[in-house]
């Protein structure tokens, strides 16, 4: 099988890699680039644990070929904090105990970031619908929804 040579922008860095033609972006991130934040839950686009942001849209990296990353801008959980300063969403997830085992958390954070990038003031219903493609078996979702709403309020400069 022929290897494909890919140049992409990953968390603001220019990155080049070789991958197999049928290799997913998720496998490239984890196995070739050492970025273990995105998780494989189902591998079929149902659970959202592998969510990354590609050209501004949140996608399941298990349903993207590594080769398709050519010329794209990819954001993963590893690029979310600025140095040691956590993103407001990350802080609020901790504050609200919006995680337990943590497997779904990178995906939830990337999906929530894409939501707040597009809509700084989502309603609870909008948050729940937006995050319907991210499955969590620990929290019961309520704490996640509250953490996202609280982070949005903080990012709008409103005291919580």
């Amino acid at each position, binding site marked *: *099988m*022929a290897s*494909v040579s890919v140049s992409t922008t990953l968390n603001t860095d220019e990155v080049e890699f070789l991958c197999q*033609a*049928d290799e*997913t972006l998720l496998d490239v991130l984890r196995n070739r680039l050492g970025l273990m934040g995105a998780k494989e839950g189902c*591998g*079929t*686009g*149902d659970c*959202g644990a592998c*969510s990354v942001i*590609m050209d501004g*849209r*949140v*996608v*399941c990296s*298990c*349903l*993207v*070929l590594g*080769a*398709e990353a*050519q010329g794209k801008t990819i954001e993963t959980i590893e690029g979310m904090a600025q140095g040691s300063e956590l993103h407001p969403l990350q802080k609020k997830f901790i504050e609200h105990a919006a995680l337990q085992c943590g497997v779904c958390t990178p995906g939830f954070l990337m*999906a929530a970031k*894409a*939501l707040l990038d597009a809509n700084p003031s989502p309603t609870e219903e909008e948050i729940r*619908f*937006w*995050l*319907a*493609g*991210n499955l969590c078996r620990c929290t019961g979702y309520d704490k996640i929804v509250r953490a996202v709403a609280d982070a949005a309020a903080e990012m709008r400069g409103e005291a919580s």
Partner: protein
Amino acid sequence: MRYERPETIGDATALLASAKGRAFVLAGGTDLLVRMKSDAFEADMVVDIKAVAGMSDISETADGFEIGAAVPCAALGEHAGLVAAWPGVVEAANLIGSTQIQGRCTMSGNLCNASPAADSVPALVAAGARVRIAGPDGTRIVPVEDVPQAPGKTTLKKGEFIAAILLPKPAQRSGDAYLRFTPRTEMDIAVVGVGVQLALDAKGVVETARVALGAVGPKVVLAEQAADTIIGTALDDAALEALAEACSAASNPIDDKRGTAAFRKHVAGVLARRAAKIAYERAGGK
């Protein structure tokens, strides 16, 4: 497996036509990549069409809208002109999958995957949409309902792929709607889906109508007799009842894990009635 990213329609069709073994078109990949992971599926070549000019564009033309084959469904909902002209089509496309899936999945892929339960297909058929098919012998334009043949099978020939979906300009005083039944509110597959499009005369009487049913047969059903029941009416209760009966009669579903045939026949009528009322209101009828 080979991965190819042609930059012209000619190169794409040439690759597909000359492929030895099984070649697949890649747009959003939300169906194709899932299938590629199953043991029973083998792809020898994947042709990614997203680098071909125009594939990711929605353009407003003199005849209506041209939606490139690789336009993700999320982009349809962000296009104010398209939402205003064809709200039913956009709502149907936006029902597919999660936010993550919406960022990748396409209506052309939904059509070519040829699932009887595809949400966007009945809405497109009701809207009278057509597709532009590119192939080794040039392009041809066919109605959407002529693309699916059977579950998982289309009428596309070797070397051909859908380059764009063509939506007409909506007629004056017209409206469309799509409704589906699912046990859950999101992340689910239609048990039944119904698309309705109608146009009214100045007095609010239905002049033309198209009704399309999904998930009640091996492929989408263009229910012409059902549409005839509301033409010439002001969508009164008797007309709606006749429409529901005709839609149930036009349904030929199976029993499966998502619903029984009897339930599907009934729900096809219920949804048709509700969708027709929404389309009627959107057309300006009272």
